[in-house]
């Protein structure tokens, strides 16, 4: 079994278009929230606030002739992948590329294209749609496009498990590198679905906060939708050492579970089993963990249930944990959230900084742990968890460890 390390990171987020800007924003507690601009006719929406990637100009990254094939969800995925690969310093020649996996999480794929297409035919009564609508919107497009643009010829596919998609994707990639099934992996998640139809769908769920997402806080009013892409390059430790790569952190565990219960209500048992499995997979005990990047959506139900699950898994040690929800800053990027959060977790481990939960007003009796309120915390972090819990009761948890 290989030890698996992260040697490259890339991110396109509401806090900036690269991983360094994103991590800097998280540490400073910057809010990425703002008014909706990406939806057609936003004035018709009840929901006014989301976390958009601001000022992303595709022409800075792509030839004009390439763009008809690329939905926003693929554009940001490719930009994040290019950044991660460049940082890793790996050159994917033919023999390496056929043994490199490209596994990307996405909840819904090319929703902007789908929304535009339906708007054309149903609202504008047009008779035809853009010829490349289907390959733009297919949910596997981000993985396909990264594989094409970055020349990765091994196992490539998209994992879809709603809000846990990227965590499942990174977990699979981690296991494939650990077992030696592949030589390297380019893995993460991408989501860009701030469209009129999607926002109407979220409005109907009745779970969104009007303006501010304040996870685990008293007075929290719900989640806010975000978007983004984040990619990590994984490879065996020995390989990274042999080529003198800068090792950012180690990935040591991955756990999964299904609630087999309610469609949308979170479940203490399911959450706990995923965390316990991840720790077992890592060969670690709960006392070894210092930081948890929580799922922390900001809904009444998730945050209370996740807190109970943390108590269950960590016992008395739960009170010693630093726990934060970076969704307070970048919203909920759904199928990409797990990747954005794993980048934050990996950087937290490397730099010894727990990013904050911003907009935190004070303790809720049902959320009685240390959520790193409002200000980042410098602290020794040897082991950290990244939690993702999806609609449909699908849970996934990754464990990162400081490389030493």
């Amino acid at each position: 079994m290989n030890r698996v390390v992260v040697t490259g990171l890339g991110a396109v987020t509401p806090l900036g278009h690269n991983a360094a800007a994103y991590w800097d924003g998280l540490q400073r507690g910057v809010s990425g929230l703002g008014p909706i601009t990406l939806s057609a006719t936003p004035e018709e929406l009840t929901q006014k606030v989301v976390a958009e990637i601001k000022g992303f100009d595709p022409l800075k990254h792509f030839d004009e002739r390439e763009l008809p094939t690329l939905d926003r969800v693929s554009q940001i995925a490719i930009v994040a992948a290019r950044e991660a690969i460049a940082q890793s310093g790996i050159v994917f020649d033919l023999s390496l590329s056929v043994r490199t996996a490209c596994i990307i999480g996405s909840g819904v794929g090319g929703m902007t294209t789908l929304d535009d297409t339906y708007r054309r035919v149903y609202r504008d009564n047009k008779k035809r749609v853009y010829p490349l609508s289907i390959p733009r919107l297919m949910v596997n497009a981000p993985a396909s496009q990264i594989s094409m643009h970055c020349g990765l010829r091994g196992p490539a596919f998209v994992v879809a498990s709603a809000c846990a998609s990227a965590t499942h994707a990174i977990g699979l990639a981690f296991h494939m590198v650990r077992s030696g099934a592949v030589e390297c992996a380019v893995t993460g998640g991408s989501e860009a679905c701030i469209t009129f139809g999607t926002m109407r769908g979220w409005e109907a769920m009745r779970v969104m906060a009007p303006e501010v997402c304040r996870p685990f806080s008293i007075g929290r009013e719900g989640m806010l939708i975000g978007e983004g892409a984040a990619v990590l390059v994984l490879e065996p430790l020995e390989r990274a050492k042999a080529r003198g790569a800068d090792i950012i952190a180690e990935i040591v565990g991955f756990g999964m579970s299904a609630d087999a219960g309610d469609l949308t209500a979170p479940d203490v048992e399911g959450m706990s089993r995923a965390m316990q499995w991840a720790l077992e997979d890592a060969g670690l005990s709960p006392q070894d963990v210092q930081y948890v990047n929580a799922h922390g959506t900001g809904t009444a139900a998730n945050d209370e249930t996740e807190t109970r699950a943390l108590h269950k898994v960590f016992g008395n040690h739960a009170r010693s944990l630093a726990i934060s929800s970076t969704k307070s800053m970048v919203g909920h990027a759904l199928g990409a959230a797990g990747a954005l959060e794993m980048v934050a977790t990996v950087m937290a481990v490397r730099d010894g900084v727990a990013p904050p939960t911003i907009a935190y007003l004070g303790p809720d009796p049902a959320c009685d742990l240390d959520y790193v309120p409002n200000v980042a915390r410098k602290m020794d972090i040897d082991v950290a968890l990244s939690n993702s819990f999806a609609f449909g009761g699908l849970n996934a948890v990754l464990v990162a460890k400081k490389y030493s």
Partner: protein
Amino acid sequence: MSDVANDVIAIIAKKVRVPNHPKIELSDRLEDLGLESLDAVEMIFDLEEKFDIQIPYNANTTRTEFDTVGDVVGAIQKLVDKKNS
């Protein structure tokens, strides 16, 4: 009972999960009728469609405002009156 109350009760009745529950009364609590969070969200949708109104409802914060069937009827009556005024 008002027309609004009858319509609201008919919509709620479709969501009741308690077997052989007797006739729904205004004093019945939604929780006691077995309505779970998704049932409430579906109920709100049905009510909005039926009365052509928008109900400000956030599942994170409004659980207590819609405690009984009577609370729902009262809220809908207000919104319908406002729409017709």
